[in-house]
């Protein structure tokens, strides 16, 4: 897979030419629409919601929000060229030129839900020698949490470069107070494998998110498997948490998610 984020900063990569090429490709239109529909499917929103689309680009993801459920959306993106294409296409959403790494510039409780399609992996890059990905991720998730109403939900489809990046993103989301986890579609298919970060900002019962037929990234089993009778309380809780996850519930993010082999699917 090509990784534009390793070649240039986003506002440089998505220049006028690339933004037009990107938006007019029917293959890209199709993939982005499909992933946005999947993100909405995971969020199970009521109609008429106020939604933020982070890294909205030319509006390929946002326009699905207008079509499905009559939502009103606001898009933010760092690339003026992408936003110019969105204006040309006359998308319904309000547009903002902004860098998500500097925070979400909205007051507390603004949005019912947030989606981001193929964008947040850019946060893990240091495009200038002063940009610290760790600080940018923290600012991003802190301000995102605040901008959501309590009970608000987030779905970010992203392209992690490696396990470390997944861990970095999940860790930052957890540190900001989010609950949730990772949904992986088409895991066996290396080329089509898709990652969705699904988060909730307080007060959400597990039924509020559609977990049918999906799997949540879970803490791998300890290597030295202990006998049930010997286990400590902590191990018992972890085992129960594991069981809950297996049954497709959302539980609080664990701190040591990744870097180890994932267990087979259920």
């Amino acid at each position, binding site marked *: 897979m090509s990784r534009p984020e390793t070649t240039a900063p986003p506002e440089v990569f998505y220049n006028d030419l690339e933004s037009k090429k990107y938006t007019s490709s029917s293959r890209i239109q199709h993939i982005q629409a499909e992933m946005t529909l999947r993100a909405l499917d995971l969020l199970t929103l009521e*109609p*008429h*919601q*106020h939604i933020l689309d982070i890294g909205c680009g030319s509006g390929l993801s946002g326009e699905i929000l207008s079509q499905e459920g*009559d939502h*009103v959306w*606001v898009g*933010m993106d*760092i690339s003026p060229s992408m*936003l*110019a294409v969105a*204006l040309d296409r006359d998308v*319904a959403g*309000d*547009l*903002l*030129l*902004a*860098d998500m790494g*500097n*925070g979400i*510039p*909205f*007051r507390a*409780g*603004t949005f*019912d839900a947030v989606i981001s399609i193929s964008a947040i992996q850019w946060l893990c890059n240091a495009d200038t020698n*002063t940009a610290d990905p760790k600080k940018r991720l923290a*600012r991003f998730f802190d*301000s995102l949490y605040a901008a959501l*109403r309590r009970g608000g939900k987030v779905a970010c489809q992203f392209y992690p470069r490696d396990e470390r990046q997944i861990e970095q993103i999940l860790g930052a989301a957890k540190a900001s107070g989010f609950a949730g986890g990772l949904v992986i579609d088409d895991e066996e298919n290396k080329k089509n494998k898709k990652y969705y970060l699904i988060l909730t900002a307080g007060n959400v019962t597990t039924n509020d998110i559609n977990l049918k037929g999906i799997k949540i990234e879970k803490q791998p089993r300890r290597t030295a498997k202990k006998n049930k009778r010997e286990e400590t309380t902590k191990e018992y809780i972890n085992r129960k948490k594991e069981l809950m996850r297996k049954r497709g519930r959302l539980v609080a993010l664990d701190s040591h998610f990744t870097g180890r082999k994932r267990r087979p699917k259920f």
Partner: protein
Amino acid sequence: MKLLTANFVQCSVKACSATPKCFPLHFDQQTADVPLELAHEDVDFSPEFVYNMLPRIDWPALTTTARELGNNMLPETKPEIENPNAPEHEQLLRDLHTLLLETQIIQGSMRCENCGHIYFIRDSIPNFLLPGHLVQ
């Protein structure tokens, strides 16, 4: 940018977002090179959406923004609506829809009361990118 969005954006500077002065951003000082320009744009009317958003609207901020944009007609207190489908509320919901969703700020500038940073709006897109010295 819709008036609805203007009722939610706040200063992007980290130190400001911790103070109450980061919201609302103010339209009271405009510059000659980006003069204030408003426009009406038709948007499909959804009474349910307006009804859903009404509790979240900061009414004092909305009246301030409207006044700075030259509209002194808003009532002092937020109207109350119990049922979005009640016929007696339809006109009120339509008026709110026109104000919040169909009033576009095409260009102009917004000022943070705390740090003084000016956010310019051009082609209806506000620029929230921060100059290096304001990134923390």
